[in-house]
């Protein structure tokens, strides 16, 4: 199922009757063929209803402006896991994972406020040195004149080591974090990372066991500035059920590594696809500042966020009925020419590069956005100090998912 099969995406996107067009098919993202589907929807049916898909019926919101309207409508567009949460795929009620991204106010606000000081300006400033030291160590350890997978050696390595620091999790076990992250988001399928929901539950139970040990250690000690201690001592989180603790761990682990991981990989790919931009960057390394948000826009590491209407809701001239599923396609809004000039071009010196949807907007806007940008910025500063070029030497392999827009393999070579 995960093995690429030849699909003529350009033809399918152009000729499928609108009412049967289904941009949620994960194969579209695995094959990096999503552009024509969303270009057509933005032009012909910007708010679009798909009556049948592997995820059931759903609405697609595809333009920047309509997505912004939905982002601000949290009173009628619920994120609550009771309604299905924040991704297009509904989970069995018994397997539902409460986490603050999948809650509405006031509970969302209360829990989010417990963890957000971890990325407050003073804390970020403290992390800068740690990230730089790790980035240097990782880059210095890379082979020369040899093909290796950038995702594994750099993107995962840097982001999980940062995540281990945020949790004060044993560094030597940091790869367990990316493993649990991948298990949490994988689509169950034969031959996949997980084949059944039971396997996912087993991986998450193992994660919960390890973190419960850390929690027990920290709940009886004085509060410390790590995420587990903050959750154990926070008024809104200290009495969480084990399931809620599990949910919030998934949120922090996935949010804290997978997204930045895929932007780190995407950046290397985009510069290779756009040699003139790579030349511009080498000539003026200060462009890292505006390149970083451009990478995050261009990659859009989470293709969408989902909401569920709790009352009838008007957007783009259509009426969404109470109970219906709404998918805000960030990956489409980030390529909307009505909002972003020449949106399909990767340009590292855009005037307002931070005007993009990748972090979401409104009350659920990404908590770690500035930390993500900082990791990318420091990594690129250090890359430019060392390597005149990083060559992509093979086809990237992509994640089979309509939610995590990611790269699993990026073969590269650094000339020595």
């Amino acid at each position, binding site marked *: 199922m995960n093995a690429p099969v030849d699909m003529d995406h350009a033809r399918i996107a152009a000729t499928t009757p609108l009412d049967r067009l289904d941009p949620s098919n994960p194969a579209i993202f695995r094959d990096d063929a999503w552009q024509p589907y969303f270009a057509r929807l933005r032009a012909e049916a910007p708010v679009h209803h798909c009556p049948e898909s592997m995820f059931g019926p759903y609405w697609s919101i595809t333009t920047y402006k309509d997505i912004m309207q939905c982002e601000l409508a949290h009173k009628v567009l619920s994120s609550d896991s009771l309604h299905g949460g924040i991704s297009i795929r509904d989970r069995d009620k018994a397997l539902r994972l409460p986490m603050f991204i999948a809650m509405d106010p006031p509970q969302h606000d209360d829990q989010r406020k417990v963890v957000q000081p971890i990325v407050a300006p003073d804390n970020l400033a403290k992390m800068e040195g740690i990230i730089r030291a790790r980035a240097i160590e990782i880059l210095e350890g890379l082979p020369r004149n040899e093909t290796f997978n950038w995702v594994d050696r750099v993107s995962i390595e840097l982001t999980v080591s940062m995540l281990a620091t945020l949790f004060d999790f044993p560094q030597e076990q940091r790869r367990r974090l990316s493993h649990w992250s991948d298990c949490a988001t994988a689509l169950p399928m034969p031959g996949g990372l997980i084949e059944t929901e039971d396997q996912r539950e087993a991986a998450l139970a193992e994660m919960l066991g390890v973190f419960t040990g850390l929690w027990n250690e920290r709940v009886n000690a004085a509060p410390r500035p790590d995420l587990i201690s903050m959750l154990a001592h926070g008024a809104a989180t200290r009495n969480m059920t084990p399931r809620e603790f599990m949910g919030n761990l998934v949120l922090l682990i996935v949010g804290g590594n997978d997204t930045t991981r895929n932007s780190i990989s995407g950046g290397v790919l985009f510069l290779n696809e756009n040699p003139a931009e790579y030349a511009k960057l080498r000539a003026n390394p200060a462009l890292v500042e505006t390149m970083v948000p451009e990478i995050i826009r261009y990659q859009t590491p989470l293709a969408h966020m989902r909401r569920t209407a709790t009352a009838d809701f008007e957007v783009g001239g259509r009426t969404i009925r109470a109970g219906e599923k709404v998918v805000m396609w960030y990956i489409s809004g980030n390529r909307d020419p009505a909002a972003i000039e020449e949106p399909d071009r990767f340009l590292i010196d855009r005037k307002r590069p*931070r005007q993009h949807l990748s972090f979401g907007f409104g009350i659920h806007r990404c908590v770690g956005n500035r930390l993500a940008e900082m990791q990318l910025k420091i990594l690129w500063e250090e890359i430019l100090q060392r390597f005149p070029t990083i060559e992509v030497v093979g086809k990237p392999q992509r994640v089979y998912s309509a939610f995590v827009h990611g790269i699993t393999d990026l073969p590269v070579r650094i000339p020595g």
Partner: protein
Amino acid sequence: MPRVTYVEYNGREHGIELEAGLSVMQGAIENNIPGIDADCGGECACATCHVFVPEEWLAKTGTPGEQEASMLGFAATAQPNSRLACQITMSEALDGLVVHMPEAQH
């Protein structure tokens, strides 16, 4: 034209003239004043144009609306005198307004 002064976290001041009807956020962006990010472009959806309004101006700038208050609730360094600059509309009554920027926008 009414004037507004932006004070960076390091104390550096930037005084500009700002047409009535424009937001204090727009004034900062159009004049390339550092310290205001305005990621959402003025939709009250990101809290990256966070400013502090001195006590003496609070009555004239008014208080945050519901959406603004929600967003400020997630701004790392919010204080009782915090506002989002995109929600303060310039007017003759605000001539001479001073706003202070936080350490960083988040």
